[in-house]
């Protein structure tokens, strides 16, 4: 498998993403932002489609899409008349629908499948560089923000008196979620990338009673899911992104059975 340069590049991509997205997922779950993670990844579809239309790198489209999705989610969540969940659901469905409409119009090249499910085996050197840079940025920011993120999630009421303003750090986490989503979108697609964020983290939080080991375990499980998924894809001739997502989702199920 490793003799194949395409698979080697995909492996490098998924390992880089795993090291950032695994720990990011732990924070997302601890801050109860799993819905936001799914919403953001789905909501950036219009950005991906517009990038495909314009012929620019997908990572740029993902960045624009994530920005619009984050803004729409933040605005919708604040509308007390309809409630946060309903507001976010409406905003994300609208964005996803708009993305699908754009993608299905006759003028667009037939790349909807790639945008939804990613193209791990078609990752370019530029994609790899972009993913690497973004993943390092997410990992470094998470390490620097470890304490205020922990305070904000653990004891929201007392956090300000201990030096962490929860609203500010929750917003910072959403920004990092957006960056992580952008990094993963070209490889794993709008629909599947959330699996690598949420599933290994869910398993890690079942397996560990302490925060630091949970973060490390999540990174390890995400990497394992990446390697296992690519191996499954290579030997069983399955779609690479979907195989990685399936392996990631298996982690919390196995962890649940084991604990």
């Amino acid at each position, binding site marked *: 498998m490793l003799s194949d340069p395409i698979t080697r590049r995909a492996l490098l991509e998924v390992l880089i993403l795993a090291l950032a997205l695994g720990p990011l997922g732990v924070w997302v779950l601890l801050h109860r932002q799993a819905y936001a993670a799914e919403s953001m990844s789905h909501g950036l579809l219009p950005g991906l489609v517009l990038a495909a239309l314009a012929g620019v790198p997908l990572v740029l489209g993902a960045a624009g899409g994530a920005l619009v999705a984050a803004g729409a989610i933040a605005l919708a969540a604040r509308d007390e008349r309809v409630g946060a969940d309903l507001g976010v659901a409406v905003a994300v469905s609208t964005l996803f629908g708009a993305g699908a409409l754009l993608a299905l119009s006759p003028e667009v090249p037939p790349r909807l499948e790639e945008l939804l499910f990613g193209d791990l085996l078609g990752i370019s050197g530029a994609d790899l560089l972009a993913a690497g840079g973004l993943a390092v940025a997410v990992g470094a920011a998470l390490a620097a*923000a470890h*304490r205020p993120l922990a*305070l904000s999630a653990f004891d929201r009421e007392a956090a*300000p008196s*201990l030096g962490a303003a929860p609203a500010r750090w929750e917003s910072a986490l959403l920004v990092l979620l957006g960056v992580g989503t952008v990094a993963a979108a070209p490889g794993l697609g709008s629909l599947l990338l959330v699996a690598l964020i949420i599933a290994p983290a869910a398993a890690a939080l079942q397996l560990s009673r302490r*925060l630091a080991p*949970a973060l490390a375990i999540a990174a390890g499980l995400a990497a394992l899911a990446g390697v296992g998924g690519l191996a499954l894809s290579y030997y069983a001739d399955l779609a690479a992104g979907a195989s990685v997502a399936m392996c990631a989702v298996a982690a919390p199920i196995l962890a649940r059975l084991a604990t």
Partner: protein
Amino acid sequence: MTLVRTHDLAGGYRPGTDAITGVSFAAEPGEVIAILGPNGGGKSTLFRALLGELPHRRGTVELAGRPAYVPQTERARLDFPVSALDVALMGAYGRTPFYRRLDRTPGLEALARVGLEAQAGERFGELSGGQRQRVLIARALVQDAQVLLLDEPLSGVDAPSAASIEALFEELRGEGRALLVATHDVRQARAWQRVLCLHGRQIAFGVPGCLTPAVLQATYGGELVVLPDGTSAIAVEHHEH
């Protein structure tokens, strides 16, 4: 040196809607002040104002340093993957740069002071309610503040924890700190140095002797129940904030 002084403090969460008005009191070193009042009477709002977290505040607040705040234990996440020591050490987060490793010694010492040194490695969510409350107090001790704001620290805790907490209050008093304790326990409040009664506005502030039936009636209104023996009790319905 006065550790807390407010003058005509007022404010709330929305402009034009005051949750407290006319609060003027002072806390000296070595004083425990009971903050009495019904649910929604302004106890938590007063704490938010003292912490500088009330969105709309008028009047003056003078504080000797940043106070430490001890919330009710059920406000903390029980499913969060942290040990008792991890929680105690959170008290040092504000003064430790993110790149510097935390010194575990203050956390262990604080846990020892609340009688939980042996539970340092136990998961916070698996401790009893009283033990969790003591861990949160240990976190405030690590903050090393001169003023502690405690939100119903004795409410619903087991007897050994309550005894440990009350003994600790005496120790902290002896160290010259001031403790502001929100409570519904009038009998307990009478044992402390000062009482501050709130019902949206300040009803009374002074030595416990000021807790006359009229003051209690003005403070608690319909929640005050007069028992057959002539004493009074507070009918409290706990609510989620």
